[in-house]
């Protein structure tokens, strides 16, 4: 038949087929999920990889705690260490030697028993220099671990990890580290199945295909079932997990919901039980119409502006203090971020495991103007134009514009904004050619040290050009040697006081984790690290499907 006849017929048939398929949405995920106890989880970006010793980022963290399990877990509400693969553990008096007793019924997903040797080998692999594990520093409290990871030391037996017997592991630290148990819940300390890795290539080789569906072997509450790129990642309840009786969920669908507005619409259309984030403008609406879906809880992280103290007019602490004092944080939190963030007056979030530093001063424009005059810029005259750098993001833009306006109104100073793409922003910041730059820091574990160890002179994460010997002595010598928790916190409090007096950073607010959670989702209490614990979660089969 002539070609000119076939082509139009083809087009018409394709059109009709797609129109026919348009008949209505059918049952949505939440209704089906509740019936079959399958959770639909909005997970943000598409996960990079499933190898715990390579990945960085929160989406990957959710998958790791579903597929693998470390020696020690965290209590879903209080984040206190609770037994994981290790049934129990003992700590020596001087707090440097930990001995872990591994459960005899702990098994890999392919049935192999879990042994102390598995952990020793996994930690060795995690620290291999060639692997380029960006979180290898989690293991640095262990004796000689840092030396091994930089290649100075090649014999892993000198690292403070010894297998006493099949189910007992002894770990020796450089010096007492009260928060060490929390580090064991980080995925770079998770065990990996040696045989599977070696089957697919060198332990130190990145991107071998051992994490593919069908070859992945883990020891967590769930096993990997399906992974369609940019579409969905599905895990199923593990038959070999030691605590399988408490696991109520039959499976979890992780949806890569990168676009926050699309994710919120999927939630409203009943396609998701849980969303990774909540669009700021929608929070008010949810707070009024269905508050039970809106879960907002404090999060172990601080949003602040980093000041480049090497810049002449910003090297004067009074100028920095004036800038900090002229920001009305209450108004910013209420009218700009609107998600219930908490104005921040200390760098370490208040009562982190009982530790609270003394607060810096709040909004005081008169004092700010006085300080500015004192520093040689009466009424803002002669104050050179200063630039706020931020990476392309809706939230940062709004905040920067608001603060720019506040400084202009209160201090009558000329502020410009510079919006740069993520990688360029990082490069500008690390190379130090910025004046003021947006920044944020999330704690790796619940302890003031993860916040205060940042401000080491020329430390990778410092970048302000500020440093102070007394501060470094307190944080890196006195605190680690402190005998009691109270003495340690006292040293940290003194150090944070110095930091807040010098003010190389302008604190803005303490983060809150915000999610939309369907009422049928149970067993998900919010906590400071926003850690979900999948094995305690379950879905109560309420009739309510999506909500309008």
């Amino acid at each position, binding site marked *: 038949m002539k070609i000119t006849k076939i082509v139009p017929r083809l087009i018409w048939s394709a059109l009709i087929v797609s129109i026919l398929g348009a008949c209505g949405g059918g049952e949505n995920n939440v209704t089906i999920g509740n019936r079959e106890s399958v959770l639909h989880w909005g997970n943000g970006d598409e996960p990079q990889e499933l190898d715990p010793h390579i990945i960085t980022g929160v989406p990957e963290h959710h998958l790791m705690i579903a597929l693998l399990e470390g020696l020690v877990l965290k209590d879903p509400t209080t984040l206190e260490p609770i037994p994981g693969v290790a049934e129990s553990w003992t700590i020596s008096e001087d707090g440097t030697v930990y001995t872990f007793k591994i459960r005899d019924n702990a098994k890999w997903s392919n049935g192999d028993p879990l042994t102390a040797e598995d952990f020793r080998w996994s930690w060795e692999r995690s620290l291999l220099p060639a692997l380029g594990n960006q979180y290898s520093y989690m293991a640095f409290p262990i004796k000689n671990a840092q030396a091994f990871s930089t290649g100075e030391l090649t014999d892993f037996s000198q690292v403070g990890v010894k297998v006493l017997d099949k189910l007992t592991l002894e770990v020796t630290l450089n010096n007492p580290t009260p928060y060490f148990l929390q580090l064991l819940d980080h995925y770079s300390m998770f065990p990996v199945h040696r045989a599977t890795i070696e089957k697919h290539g060198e332990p130190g080789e990145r991107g071998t295909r051992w994490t593919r569906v069908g070859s992945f072997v883990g020891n967590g509450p769930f096993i990997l079932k399906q992974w369609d790129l940019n579409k969905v990642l599905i895990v199923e309840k593990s038959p070999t997990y030691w605590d399988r009786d408490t696991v109520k969920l039959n499976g979890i669908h992780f949806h890569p919901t990168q676009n926050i507005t699309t994710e919120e619409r999927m939630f409203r259309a009943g396609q998701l039980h849980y969303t990774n984030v909540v669009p700021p403008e*929608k929070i008010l609406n949810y707070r009024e119409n269905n508050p039970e879906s809106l879960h907002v809880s404090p999060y172990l992280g601080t949003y602040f502006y980093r000041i480049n103290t090497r810049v002449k007019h910003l090297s004067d602490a009074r100028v920095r203090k004036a800038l900090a004092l002229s920001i009305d944080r209450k108004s910013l939190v209420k*009218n*700009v971020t609107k998600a219930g963030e908490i104005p921040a007056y200390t760098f370490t979030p208040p009562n982190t495991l009982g530790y609270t530093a003394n607060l810096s001063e709040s909004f005081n424009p008169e004092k700010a103007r006085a300080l500015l005059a004192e520093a040689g810029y009466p009424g803002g005259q002669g104050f050179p134009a200063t630039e706020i750098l931020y990476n392309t993001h809706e939230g940062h833009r*709004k905040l920067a514009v*608001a603060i720019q306006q506040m400084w202009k109104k209160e201090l009558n100073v000329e502020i410009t904004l510079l*919006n740069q*793409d993520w990688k360029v922003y990082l490069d500008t910041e690390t190379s130090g050619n910025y004046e003021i730059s947006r920044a944020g820091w999330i704690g790796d574990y619940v302890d003031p040290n993860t916040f205060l160890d940042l401000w080491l002179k020329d430390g990778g994460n410092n970048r302000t050009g500020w440093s102070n010997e007394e501060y470094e002595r307190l944080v890196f010598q006195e605190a680690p040697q402190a005998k009691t928790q109270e003495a340690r916190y006292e040293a940290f409090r003194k150090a944070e006081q110095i930091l807040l007096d010098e003010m190389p950073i302008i604190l803005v607010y303490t983060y809150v984790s915000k999610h939309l959670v369907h009422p049928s989702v149970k067993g998900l209490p919010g906590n400071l690290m926003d850690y979900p614990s999948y094995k305690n979660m379950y879905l109560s089969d309420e009739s309510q499907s999506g909500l309008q």
Partner: protein
Amino acid sequence: MTSAKEFDDEQGVSLWQDAWVRLQHNRLALLGMGVLIFMIVIALITPWIVPYSYEEQDLMLGAAPPSMAHWLGTDVLGRDMLTRVMYGGRVSLMVGFIATGVALLIGVVYGAVAGYVGGRVDAAMMRLVDILYALPFMIFIILLMVLFGRNMLLLFLAIGAVEWLTMARIVRGQVLSLRQQEFVEAAISIGLSPWTIIRRHIIPNTLGPVIVYTTLTIPSVMLLEAFLSFLGLGIQPPQSSWGLLISYGVETMEEYPWLLIYPGLTLSIALFALNFLGDGLRDALDPKASKD
């Protein structure tokens, strides 16, 4: 030998003069032109007639619906929308006209030369166009932003570099068919130089489709500007443009619809006016078409 330049304006003037006479018959085109002139005038005198400064915020107020104080309401940071739409007009119209002008200039000349010369030269020029089509535009913007910092000139460069490609292809197609016409052969037989022939005979006869395509390019340029500004290449906050206002308005479409409706409406009115004017101009410049 007197330079060809001398009698050039003689011919130029009369073409536009006659076009203006014919344009007046077309009511819709006049309406379109009127609306555009109104918008341009408003954009020019904005700083003097604007009720609020475009950056003055009232955080307490936040996003308020249109009221007596703020005729078009306020945005999430409490800034007056009417002011921002007017300031937005300044940027969008400037970008729209200048960037399209740049694309028009390069595209028409490049297309005319490629179409007229033909043969291997034409193939080479068209392959260059294919290459430029294929280069990753995103990387190109980030590079521009980084190497030259950011200013409006850069914005035009980035937009012009993308838009002139399609213009060149269209003009080339047009010139290929014009090349066969007898009046071009007549011009050659008079002994005119190729460049004079292109300038005086070829380009005026490609005006029809070029104008139609320009009226379609301006809107896409305005929206491209919004995308570039969002990435940090174009204008920096607190300034704004229609495209940016629309992209911010989309996020709060349900809660604060007026943040989207007013800039969207203004942009649409401008584009419709532009298109009616474009059609009118095309008919006016084509003496045959407007005869009946």
